[in-house]
């Protein structure tokens, strides 16, 4: 509903049909079947798996259905630092993406309005990274931040980094990677709201003796809040479950593993499906709670 509300600037209200028509139901059917098959079924399977227990005297990867709720306690005890790290990194990356993405979106959406060609080109640049595989781009950053590169050498000679310091494999590089990879998801929704910003409001603010800063806080920011909310959600949710950036093969190290890495290791490395499923269910639940609180706090009601 929160998302539906973002699109509510549309014109006249259309009257919802009073009677349920069969056509609508038939049209809905493929969608419902799709949801049942590819969302509901895996979800049920995931929850069921999270309660499984190892077969007695069984072999690697052999489990049977049970109601072993201890799986949840086990994974929370073993992996709480990974949860903390995941949400910590995701929050910092989201804030960083907002600080970078908002001015970018403002520039493209408001300042470049009179030059449609430039605007289109800049937008293309924002989306351009998507034309190259996400994995390749992350690997490229790993190479750019490697120890022998001019960047790291310069940081060391400026004493920003200690002589035996690294960039790769640190919290910094992981958060950097998350911010970089999800920046377009932040920029584009903010752009769409700012692009429709009525600049006459800003003029009105100036006419009423508000400083540019006050106008921004009182007018521009509230008007672009729907974009910020969807942008932060689109960044935070995938970032907190991400396991590529933090993986040792990419920008992370053993000190930066997030909960996504723990899920991957349990699913693929250990074939410990119940614990992996329990981790996934907890992650999903925590994200739902965090997002729910966030959407409430930013007040979708206020936005309307």
């Amino acid at each position: 509903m929160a998302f539906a509300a973002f699109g509510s600037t549309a014109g006249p209200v259309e009257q919802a049909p009073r009677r349920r028509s069969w056509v609508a139901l038939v049209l809905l059917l493929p969608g419902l079947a799709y949801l049942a098959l590819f969302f509901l079924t895996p979800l049920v399977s995931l929850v069921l798996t999270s309660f499984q227990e190892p077969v007695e005297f069984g072999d690697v990867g052999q489990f049977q259905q049970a109601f072993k709720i201890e799986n949840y306690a086990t994974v929370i005890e073993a992996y709480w630092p990974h949860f903390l790290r995941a949400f910590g990194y995701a929050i910092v990356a989201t804030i960083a993406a907002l600080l970078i993405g908002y001015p970018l979106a403002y520039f493209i959406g408001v300042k470049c309005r009179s030059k449609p060609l430039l605007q289109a080109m800049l937008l293309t640049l924002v989306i351009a990274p998507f034309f190259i595989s996400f994995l390749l781009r992350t690997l490229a950053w790993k190479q750019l931040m490697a120890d022998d590169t001019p960047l790291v050498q310069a940081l060391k000679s400026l004493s920003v980094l200690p002589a035996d310091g690294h960039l790769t494999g640190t919290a910094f590089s992981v958060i950097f990677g998350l911010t970089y990879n999800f920046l377009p998801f932040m920029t584009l929704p903010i752009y769409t709201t700012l692009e429709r910003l009525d600049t006459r409001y800003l003029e009105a603010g100036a006419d009423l003796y508000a400083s540019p800063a006050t106008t921004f806080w009182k007018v521009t920011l509230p008007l672009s809040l729907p974009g910020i909310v969807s942008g932060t959600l689109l960044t935070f949710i995938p970032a907190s479950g991400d396991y590529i950036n933090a993986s040792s093969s990419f920008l992370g190290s053993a000190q930066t593993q997030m909960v996504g890495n723990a899920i991957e290791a349990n699913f693929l490395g250990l074939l410990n499906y119940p614990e992996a499923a329990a981790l996934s269910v907890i992650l999903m639940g925590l994200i739902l709670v965090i997002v729910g609180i966030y959407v409430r706090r930013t007040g979708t009601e206020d936005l309307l």
Partner: protein
Amino acid sequence: MTRQLPQDPIVRELVVQARRMQFSRRNILQGAGIGAGALALAACAPTSAGAPKPAEDISATDKTLTWSNWPAYIDEDDDGNYPTLVRFQDQTGISVEYKVDIDDNNTYYGTIKDQLALGQFTGADTFCLTEWMVARLIRFGYVQDLDAANIPNKKNLAPALLNPDFDPGRAKSLPWQNGFAGLAWNTEEIPAGIKSVDDLWKPALKGKVTVLSEMRDTMGILLLSQGVDISSEDWGTDEYQAAIAVLEENVASGQIFGIKGNEYMQDFVSGDAIAAIAWSGDITVLNAEAGYEKWKFALPETGGTLWGDTFVVPMGSPRKANAETLMNYYYEPEVAAEVAAWVNYITPVVGAKEVAAEKFPEVADNQLIFPDADTLSNAHIFRTLDSADDQAFNAEFQRVKLGA
């Protein structure tokens, strides 16, 4: 649910509709129906029930074969063709689809395990996995017996490899390539070289060391450095814990930069790592790319590990005889020598060295490709773990890999 309705007309309408939907009994029933359907579907996920049976062999009429293997693991020319495989197809008329889709034993197993358990076709008639994984496949009854009559060249198998504990006489498996895990280092940064595992923990190398994510290679080398004979049965959890403590300490202190698969090669090139527990063939490839011997590989004084990747035919494959024809072909010394000279790993085929001495003299003396008895005596095979140890040791290793 009796909250006040929102002011906005659209949202108001949405909320009203949503409530109407919520309280319709029929909808609740429908929802329950979908939920039950989902449950039924979820229950379809296969569970291991009885050992699968071999598929009926249609090789006589179906002259095709699908072979899955690891990257850079067969001779390849500049156009991306596989010369030995092309000749095999010309000779036998069997057309082979060679798939490079294995990059990790666990991941590959994870993707095909349901088909394996049901005895269905997995997408490959034969594949080459590492021996510990092959041991598991044999233990589970997932692979077919090989017909020695179809593989006369099996006589060329190195005698030392004929009787592994998991498959005496090689009834169900046949080695593809073997290789060493040992120590590798950058000769420019570390001219003195690395002789023992302890050298990796020197302060000068802090944050510049990587170790392999293959548990048996890394832990095997650490266990050997503590005087444990990893091939024998007389070690267990205590010895393993002592070795994992060393790994954990060096990961926690930042001495070890990462626990990695083949990606450590990138770290060597970029300079992020200058010393590693590594695979022998990789270092030869890196040096070939650099154009000179920038990196060196050696077995530690306390010993390195010898691993092997092995052909198996899963139960679901209906083209076992074709697979056997393929194995037989690759056990001809001429063919084996050609592959070994390209992939830089140890061929299990006796006689390949003599062929290589004639045709590829530059590799015939390479101890990493054609090791002599002296070199081999310092390389050890990790013993097959029983299921409980396998799971416990892997869990410990993954725990260290994930940090705290």
